[in-house]
């Protein structure tokens, strides 16, 4: 009897304290954020999680009254997280802020009216001056900006094993033709020329081939409709892509991107094309030294172009803790927050006033390129095409991997562009 009574009292006490914090929350709405902020992401492991934790640390220092609630859902590139998020948004249970790739991937949320315009933050915090002028137009929709980019990754990087290159007397190829010459040598020597992984890494390879063959302007034109998908140039790129595939490992479909990078590390393959998150895998996970264990160059034909993707945070309409969410976004966009996050995550800050000295050599070179290169967006990572368009391209690619029919592939890509209204 007694224990039951005390349990009951305990329950009442808990209920009362919840009610108190709840009222405390609402009465505090003003300039000082407090209460909770629930942030949704797909950063659950490795450097990504470490980066998020570092960012949260900065946040906790600046806003000690706000409790950070991590609502991360595991799954690479957000494949699982997006399904969970869609359900929550439809149920009116939006998190206070969620991660999304900056660019066209957010369009679905924007057209559904689920995101708040954040232009006011850009004005208040002076971000328009510190975020690159090349980036802002790419994340601006009808004059409004709906997300705060925290980092920049580069997609068009070719990684290589320096020892394999030296043994076979080859250098980093500057074009796909140079690659084919080198690849023939490697093939004769019994080395897989290009390590490749599962289907999304093949889509990633496909976009770098498109960029390398078409050139930056024509590539960017694919996404606004000024370059026709049925043009002869695109056919040339598809033919090159088809040829590139013949120089890859036969078990690609069963490998993750890390498995593919590992083939390069182990000297079983010479090259691999992957975004620069692979750099952390080489340097941290495998304790390699740059230029000894691994080396890099822009993917063939893409020197002078920085094909980027960016993780960003948003403010959903109807966020329960709007003030705390805005506080979170301010930290995410601040120099201190971005430096803390990116050193751990292995990416460069979206801001151009970062403390360059604290970054490892690869990232320093990436910062130089980000400041000086032409900019193109990544398809695989949500910058250039809406989710629906990307899914159609992915299906067309999947069919092509089956039948290797370039004409059919091109027709399917052209149809996909038409369906997307380009």
């Amino acid at each position: 009897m007694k224990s039951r009574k005390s349990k009951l009292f305990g329950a009442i006490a808990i209920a009362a304290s919840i009610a108190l914090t709840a009222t405390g929350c609402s009465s505090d709405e003003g300039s000082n954020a407090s209460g909770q902020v629930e942030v949704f992401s797909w950063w659950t492991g490795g450097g990504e999680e470490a980066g998020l934790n570092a960012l949260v640390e900065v946040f906790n220092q600046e806003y000690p009254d706000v409790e950070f609630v991590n609502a991360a859902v595991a799954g690479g590139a957000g494949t699982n997280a997006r399904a969970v998020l869609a359900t929550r948004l439809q149920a009116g249970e939006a998190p206070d802020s969620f991660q999304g790739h900056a660019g066209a991937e957010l369009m679905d949320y924007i057209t559904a009216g689920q995101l708040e315009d954040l232009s006011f933050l850009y004005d208040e915090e002076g971000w328009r001056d510190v975020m690159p002028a090349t980036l802002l137009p790419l994340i601006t929709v009808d004059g409004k900006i709906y997300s705060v980019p925290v980092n920049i990754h580069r997609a068009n990087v070719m990684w290589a094993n320096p020892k394999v290159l030296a043994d076979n007397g080859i250098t980093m190829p500057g074009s796909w033709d140079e690659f084919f010459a080198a690849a023939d040598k490697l093939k004769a020597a019994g080395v897989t020329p290009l390590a490749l992984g599962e289907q999304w890494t093949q889509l990633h390879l496909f976009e770098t081939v498109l960029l390398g063959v078409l050139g930056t302007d024509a590539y960017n034109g694919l996404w606004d409709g000024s370059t026709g998908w049925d043009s002869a140039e695109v056919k040339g790129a598809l033919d090159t892509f088809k040829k590139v595939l013949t120089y890859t490992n036969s078990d690609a479909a069963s490998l993750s991107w890390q498995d593919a990078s590992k083939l390069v590390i182990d000297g079983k393959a010479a090259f691999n094309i992957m975004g620069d998150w692979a750099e952390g895998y080489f340097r941290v996970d495998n304790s390699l030294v740059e230029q000894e264990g691994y080396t890099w160059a822009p993917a063939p034909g893409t020197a002078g172009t920085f094909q980027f993707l960016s993780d960003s945070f948003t403010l959903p309409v109807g966020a329960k803790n709007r003030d705390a969410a805005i506080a979170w976004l301010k930290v995410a966009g601040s120099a201190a927050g971005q430096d803390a996050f990116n050193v751990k995550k292995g990416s460069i800050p979206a801001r151009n006033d970062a403390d360059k000295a604290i970054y490892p050599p690869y990232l320093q070179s990436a910062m130089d390129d980000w400041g000086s290169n032409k900019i193109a967006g990544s398809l695989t990572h949500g910058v250039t095409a809406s989710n629906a368009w990307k899914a159609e391209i992915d299906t067309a690619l999947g069919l092509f991997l089956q039948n290797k029919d370039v004409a059919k592939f091109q027709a399917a890509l052209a149809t996909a562009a038409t369906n997307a209204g380009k």
Partner: protein
Amino acid sequence: MKRAKDWMPGLLLTAPSLIALAVFVYGFIGWNFRISLTDWKALSPDFNFVGLKNYRDLLIDERFKIDIKNSLIFTVVFMVACLLLGLLLAILLDQKMKFEGLFRSVYLLPMAISFIVTGVVWRWLMNPATDDRISGINLLFTKVGLDPLVNQWHLTPNWGMAGIALPAVWQMAGYTMALFLAGIRSIPEEIREAARVDGASEWRIYRHVILPQLRPIALSAIVILGHISLKVFDLIIAIAGKQLALDVPAIYMWQTSFDAYNFGKGATLATYILFSVAIVIIPYLFFTMRQERKS
């Protein structure tokens, strides 16, 4: 009034589950069908009625054709292998052997594992890498001198789905065995005795006495295995991820709904999956209902 006393308590007791069924199964099937008639292509609902357009579009959809082919290969390999292996194991266990209980558990246990776990383990076992990176079953083959058997498993062009069916067979054959064994054991020993007295060999007893009596069991097994194979999703995701060579309608539905936010088309795919399962199950329901009425 007296009658109400008879059926009221029963109805009241089953009402909660009936209501839950009506809402969460049949209600949602109806809702899904309604969405399949719209061109809802965004995050926010859009109930713009387009009739059967989604259904017609899918019939000429190249990816959907691959899905149907893959589903058929998987279903045939999975069902035939499970039934034959299950029957064989059941007959072997029926030989009044020692440690029968132990063997029964050993063969049945894989069923207790989820398809995801099975998939992860078999992903390693069926590693298609060759030469110096060879591993898994292929490595075993080379070690025992069976090199010609080394193959690409689920990455075999055109027939990869047969490779995916192997882990599913490993998982469900024991269950099929348990079904058949129960069936064999339910046949009275006297019938076998009578056959033996008539001079029938053991082979003929199985062929002409036992097998015909297992027909209803085989039918149940086909229905149970059939609906598993038509809905297979997690096993493929665990082994192969999302790639078109090993695509099935369930994966297509997932990608269409949650990667591309095309809920109208996703709901149409779901309805097609429901139809395919119904084709297997409804004749079975009719059959069993007729059987019950007879007895």
